């Protein structure tokens, strides 16, 4: 029964996004504009620091893009007063968080399907090709972390007086270790000789980050949804 409820909640988010497309397109436009900004801001040439600096920019851009999407998390429920309907239903409230985190993760992946090739085109064309399997794994693991934590923090921020300001403030401290892990993992896929760490360790760190915040999200969300 709860699996059906979960599927229905995710399907609802995807349907609304397909019809209204208010989040994914905006995120794509934002991330592409951010790449162009970085490219021009750094003055045409290959960024100093090479692959390392480039992947750093990639993840900073992705985190800010994700924040743009997170601002719209639960926006429909809030604006149209639908929370009471969901809260009155006989489901575990953590399921509402899990479904929302899943759809956010799917949106992020959709954005990256466009953003990552664009990034390669802008910054890494001349360099060596990455290990695609590891790259995809790193990106998906980082997305899960952003979505799991972001959906919880978006719920916290929505109670504040200035939600749009509060969400980045609450989210960014958590983004620092995530960006560190993601940069380390993606740099490793493009130029493995930069460090002695194994790929498994880097991906393992991201997986650990996901596990911790999925557990926190699952356990704490019910305290966030009530008035």
């Amino acid at each position, binding site marked *: 029964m709860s699996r059906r409820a979960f599927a229905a909640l995710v399907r609802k988010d995807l349907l609304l996004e397909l019809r209204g497309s208010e989040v994914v397109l905006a995120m794509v436009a934002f991330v592409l504009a951010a790449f162009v900004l970085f490219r021009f801001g750094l003055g045409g040439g290959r960024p100093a620091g090479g692959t390392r600096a480039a992947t750093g920019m990639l993840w900073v851009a992705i985190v800010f893009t994700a924040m743009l999407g997170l601002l719209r998390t639960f926006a429909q429920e809030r604006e149209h007063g639908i929370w009471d309907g969901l809260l009155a239903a006989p489901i575990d409230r953590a399921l509402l968080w899990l479904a929302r985190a899943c759809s956010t993760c799917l949106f992020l992946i959709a954005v990256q399907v466009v953003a990552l090739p664009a990034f390669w085109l802008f910054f890494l064309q001349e360099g060596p090709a990455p290990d695609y399997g590891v790259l995809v794994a790193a990106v998906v693991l980082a997305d899960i972390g952003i979505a799991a934590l972001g959906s919880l923090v978006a719920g916290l921020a929505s109670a504040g007086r200035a939600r749009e300001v*509060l969400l980045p403030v*609450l989210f960014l*401290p958590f983004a620092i270790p995530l960006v*560190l892990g993601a940069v380390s993992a993606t740099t490793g896929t493009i130029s493995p000789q930069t460090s002695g760490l194994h790929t498994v360790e880097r991906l393992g760190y991201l997986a650990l980050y996901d596990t911790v915040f999925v557990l926190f999200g699952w356990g704490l969300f019910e305290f*966030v949804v009530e008035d």
Partner: protein
Amino acid sequence: MNTTAAARLDRATFAALVAAVLMPVALGLIFFYVPNDVDQGFSQRIFYFHVPIAMTTYALFGWGALNAARYLWTGDMQLDLRSYVPMHLGVIFGTLTLVTGSIWAKVSWGTWWYWGSTELNTFLIIFLFYCAYFMLRFSVEPGERRARYSAVYALLGVGLIPISVLAVHLGQDVIHPITFTDHGANMDGSMLFTFLMSLAAMLSLAVAMYLVELRGKRLDDQVARLRRLAQGTP
């Protein structure tokens, strides 16, 4: 109520007295008793401030997070206060940690901030997190919901600390290429004694501040309740 308030006052006074005795003793030990560090000389003495303050900060955050968890479990608003007050003090001690750490970095490495130090970087992330806690706390209306949200965010910090430690270690090669070698790890007897005295002084100061502030906040709450009663609303 009167007896517990009186007992609280006694405990707060007692803690303040302990801090008032330990503080000068620790200062005396740091400046006049402990010998100069072999490598770093006189300036290494800031270690006896920096590390105990950092440890006190962590202890305050730990106490705050523990009470946050207890609040979510029981819903007792007193625990919300006992969670908020140590967080509040933790940010003050945290600022001191960053300042002393920065001074230490300047005297040992010649730079105000050393990006190769895992301790400093981890602490910076956690400090930012607790500043965000305050933003959340101040932007939500007082009451049960603010207590719940603060507690949830405080608990998230418990997840963030080990994750950040790991991330900073993992990211050593991406933050800064130079490896950081730990020193001060092998302390002789007089150094350890001075260090422990300083730690005890900082902790007792924190406890005294905690008890005094808690008492102040409780009085605020009682005033608010009396005002509500006077206006005839429950």
